[in-house]
């Protein structure tokens, strides 16, 4: 597991690609708003968002996980699109769900939500919608 600084993130992933990690199998984001005290190495400063990248080396049969901290005030990270084409849809999903911007991504549009949707649903401060049910003590729509 690696915890690069945001500035070094792209280069570190690039170095891994050079050393034989041919595939980027997964990229997702996590919003740690409600869980700030997570365990991290001492030198890593915890931020609200985290982008988690899973790299896979087919030749060496190894996986490596890259976790990069993304601050709430400037939710932006460099896109890995120039290294791995496979992150195209995954970065769009992370943008759609968390509002993290990937600079250098060719087509950063919403992918799962309608394009006129407001807000980013997987953020922890995004309310969960409720549907009123017809039970006696039902607490109406919130």
């Amino acid at each position, binding site marked *: 597991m690696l915890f690069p600084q945001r500035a070094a993130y792209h280069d570190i992933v690039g170095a891994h690609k050079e050393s034989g990690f041919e595939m980027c199998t*997964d990229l997702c984001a996590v919003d740690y708003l409600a869980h700030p005290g997570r365990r991290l190495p001492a030198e890593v400063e915890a931020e609200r968002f985290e982008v988690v990248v899973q790299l896979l080396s087919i030749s060496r049969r190894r996986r490596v996980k890259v976790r990069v901290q993304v601050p709430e005030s400037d939710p932006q990270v460099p896109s890995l699109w120039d290294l791995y084409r496979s992150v195209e*849809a995954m970065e769009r999903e992370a943008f759609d769900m968390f*509002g993290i911007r990937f600079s250098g991504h060719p087509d950063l549009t919403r992918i799962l*939500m309608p*394009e006129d949707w407001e807000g980013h649903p997987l953020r922890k401060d995004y309310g969960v919608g409720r549907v009123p049910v017809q039970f006696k003590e039902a607490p109406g729509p919130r």
Partner: protein
Amino acid sequence: MTDHDVEEELAAETFEGAQEMADRAHTTAEEFSRAAGAVLRLPGGVPGSEDVDIERPSDETMIINLGPQHPSTHGVLRLMMELDGETVVRSKPIIGYLHTGMEKTAEELTYQQGSTNVTRMDYLSPLTNELVFSMATEKLLEVELPPRAVWIRMLLAELQRVSSHVMWLATNGMDLGSTTMMIFGFREREMVLAFFEKTTGLRMNHNFIRPGGTAADLPDGWEDDVAVICDTIETRLESYDELLTGQPIFRERTEGVGAITAEEAMALGVTGPILRSTGVAWDLRRTMPYLCYDQVDFDVVIGTYGDNFDRYAIRLNEIRESIRIIRQVTERMPSGDYRVQDKKVTPPPRARIDESMEALIHHFKIFTEGFKVPEGEVYTAIESPRGEIGCYLVSDGSAKPYRLHIRAPSFVNLQALPVMLHGGLVADAIATTSSIDPILGEVDR
């Protein structure tokens, strides 16, 4: 600030432009490279200028929509295509029509309830989804499963692979005009589903593989049922061979169509039968064994050309390999518990509740509050019928996942579609889409 201003600001903050492909005439150079970059994501670089002629007048080509309502798009996949006559110049899959926020829902459900949610993602191989979620939870819990639970899981996972691949043969046959194959495929799948119904109580969305083991033991006489399924499907595979493999029309429509190279497949993150069709022997059951796959004997089937025919042949032969595994599992099924005997994870058996107050309390606690999972984060990946299905699970120490992310194989594999379709015919687009085997429930989650 009025409400209107707030709305506008919110919209500006979250709006990044349309998802659709823009018309050539309305496409500025920048917009076009944006579209081309996303549409023709070739590993060599952004094709843009040399691959597609920007200067070309827009009335020579036209943009059409395939889907979201079209029988051969396997659900609600919408494909935008720019056509030059019958040749596909650009294409772009547009997804999200089946998005129901299952990852958000997962944060509201306990680990106990979680497998009812994930099982609905990939509705053609629900047990695989349950398996990956349970394995991730167990990794965080650090529990060791009893051997019988592991082997039951292997049996079900392989039966699921058989049913999923048979279903794929059926729909692929239908897309290519072979209604016979469709009837055959559904008939064989029904056999497996009947066994699942007997075992789990449901034909689909079983919620049978749960964190800590399985929900129940296998039913009495399961060996005979499984033996009948194996024998029947194995002999019927021969008739599929006769019906499709040697048939000139089928070969003409699949050979050399929708080809992709190993480099392209790896760059696009493609896994499963599509990656193996390009000659890369990558099967997580073999290369990164989980459960007890290192103890059974099977071959990883690979192709050479990466075309539709290779993908067909791989799936057909993977059914044979799965049947081989199922036979070995049946022979070597250990006896013992089917759930881990940890009181904090496993609810007590029904009979104990009538006798013991503690059992009743434990039962009540587990089903109302769920069990707590230690803090941490984990990524597990297994081989689903469609490729690598991964589960990234973050726990904050409570009874509900803090974040659940499913790495859906179809979601990633779909990115290869524009590369496969580029330069082909519209008629072949249907066959190629089918050969990717996208499950839209999993793509959109």
